[in-house]
């Protein structure tokens, strides 16, 4: 297989993946830090490098609405957005999944206002974590590229929409090495989309989005829930297929330095990369530390995480968003919930960090490992949720 090695930012990598996917319709609206994806893609359209019909809509709400309309025809449909854009789409995200439309968002994670910030945290997509979408967070530009291609196929396979995101500026605007596949390789991997039904078959008309009252609503919703439960089984198989085709080694949950680890950081996105680097350093000092990175956040692989983490002394769970007076961040509450009633109970502490793009340094990661060890040794006496990378 021929690989082209190039230098690309996360946004460029995602735009390249979109070009290679060559969707039928893209409806998008600019928003920092995802704007570049839309701009680059517009160039591909203007230069005839894709066959896509591009709809430059007047809002993200209309972007997702147009995507829903386009997807009812069976067309391959994509968009890109961030932050307030995700929030404005929120209403229609539920309709996309409820109608089982495999729409794909190339997202860039950015803090939700107020205060307004253009920088990274995960509050935007975490705010939509119950919307019935597959949610994948990438660690670097390579993952953003690979997983965009993967998620398009996975979404169409399980008939659910998917969002792949990269960390705003940290990945979206940072240049790094990117191994790109040939265009044909991506097209062959995706195959032609063959929808089961379409709103354009005028000889076999269908009604999409009817009113459903008490007599059928719950059965229909339960069916949708089953789809994401089934997707949870399907995604590892589909990822394996991707790995074989593209010569990669992705897992829905990645383990790093975990063989004999006593303490682990669980983190999403780019921070997992920083943590991996630090565990290499700490391993040289003889510290038994590792990293667990959920690549897929929805569906949530709670049982797998319990298996990976149950024998540890302490788990440091990092959240780049805060649900405002819950029992911790989204990743923390999901994992601790998965551990409820489980025989083994490692000490688990939640570190809320990096809101609005606040940097998390090597030293911060080292401090977390120090802190989680003390937390375990002192018998979990302090509060479970700790705010770090902050002046307090």
């Amino acid at each position: 297989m021929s690989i082209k090695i190039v230098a690309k930012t996360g946004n460029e990598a995602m735009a390249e993946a979109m070009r290679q996917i060559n969707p039928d319709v893209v409806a998008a609206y600019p928003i920092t830090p995802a704007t570049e994806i839309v701009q680059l893609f517009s160039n591909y359209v203007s230069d005839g490098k894709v066959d896509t019909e591009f709809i430059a809509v007047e809002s993200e709400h209309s972007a997702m609405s147009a995507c829903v309309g386009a997807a009812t025809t069976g067309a391959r449909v994509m968009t890109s957005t961030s932050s307030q854009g995700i929030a404005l789409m929120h209403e229609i995200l539920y309709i996309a999944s409820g109608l089982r439309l495999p729409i794909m968002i190339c997202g860039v994670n950015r803090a939700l206002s107020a205060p307004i910030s253009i920088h990274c945290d995960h509050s935007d997509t975490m705010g939509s974590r119950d919307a019935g979408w597959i949610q994948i967070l990438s660690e670097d530009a390579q993952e953003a590229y690979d997983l965009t291609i993967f998620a398009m196929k996975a979404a169409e396979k399980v008939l659910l929409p998917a969002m792949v995101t990269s960390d705003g500026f940290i990945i979206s605007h940072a240049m790094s090495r990117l191994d790109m596949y040939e265009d044909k390789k991506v097209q062959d991997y995706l195959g032609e989309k063959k929808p089961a039904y379409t709103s354009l078959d005028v000889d076999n008309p269908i009604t999409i989005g009817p009113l459903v009252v008490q007599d059928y609503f719950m059965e229909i919703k339960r069916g949708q829930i089953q789809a994401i439960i089934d997707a949870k089984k399907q995604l590892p198989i589909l990822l394996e297929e991707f790995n074989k085709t593209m010569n990669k080694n992705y897992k829905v949950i990645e383990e790093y330095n975990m063989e004999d680890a006593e303490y682990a950081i669980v983190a999403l996105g780019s921070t997992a990369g920083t943590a991996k680097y630090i565990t290499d350093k700490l391993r040289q000092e003889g510290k038994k530390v590792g990293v667990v990175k959920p690549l897929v956040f929805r569906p949530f692989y709670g049982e797998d995480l319990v298996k990976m983490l149950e024998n540890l002394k302490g788990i440091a769970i990092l959240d780049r968003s805060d649900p405002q007076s819950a029992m911790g961040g989204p990743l923390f509450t999901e994992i601790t919930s998965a551990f409820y009633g489980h025989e083994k109970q490692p000490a688990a502490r939640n570190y809320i960090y990096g809101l609005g793009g606040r940097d998390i340094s090597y030293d911060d990661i080292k401090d977390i490992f120090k802190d989680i060890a003390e937390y375990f040794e002192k018998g979990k006496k302090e509060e479970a949720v700790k705010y770090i990378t902050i002046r307090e």
Partner: protein
Amino acid sequence: MPTIKELTRTGDLFTSGHRACAGCGGTIILRLLMANAGKNTVVGAATGCMEVVSTIYPYTSWDVNFVHNAFENSAATVSGIETAYRALKKKGKIKKDIKFIAYGGDGGTFDIGLQSLSGAVERGHNMLYLCYNNGAYMNTGIQRSSATPFGAHTTTSPAGSKIKGKMQQRKDLTEIMIAHDMKYVAQATPHNWSDLSNKINKALALNGPAFINVLSPCPLGWGSDPAQSIQIAKLAVETLYWPVYEYENGKYKINIKPKKPKDIEEFLFVQNRFKHLKNEKELIDKIRKHLNEKWNELLNKEKCTN
């Protein structure tokens, strides 16, 4: 232009069995719309009366492809369908010529869906947007919208001892759509089926966006006799409450010019929503004055553009 006999033979693409109220103007408009549009049509709907009464799962009144997304986005949704159609046609995956219609009530069009409509029209999608305008949020129980006329009682502009219903004039959305430099914009009512049919056909023949604002009598919201809905629609035109006109390629044409307009009270007081105005001479004068001004404005526009 089809005859009424021919229209009845086009097949029931919007079929009976829906749950609309007796005397509903909206369903009459939709039936006429589909009789003219024909089978090769995709319809997108905003949430509202005409959507909920026609698609109660597992039933549907639609014998054409029908897509309902949400309240404020029928224009954006249909813009997506129409764009996908062009993409798939270009690739040879679709062979047939298909027409696209988006519709919504006045709430979904004048208010919450205005941005979506404006955006879709500016982008030039090939679609007819039809607003069935009954002048309030009837589906949620008669709340005022920006299409609600001055003085009307609604549940959020109630006629009280101090405030006599809605104290603002209605938004002139037809003019707003004309300001989009559209090729075809029209106002119509279901009482003149041939005028409305003609307008639907003109709009669907265009290659680009068209907008039709249709007055839709609502016995429940207007407090009127269900048997009189069509008669009330006619009165709306005869009293200058609802001018029937079109704007085509830069020219205004008033399709119905009442020789001797009837007084507005003849329209107002067949509806309970205005009954509190009976002894409010000043307020009625205000309505009358506004309607006359708008009518004269329209006459001038017709004169200036022809």
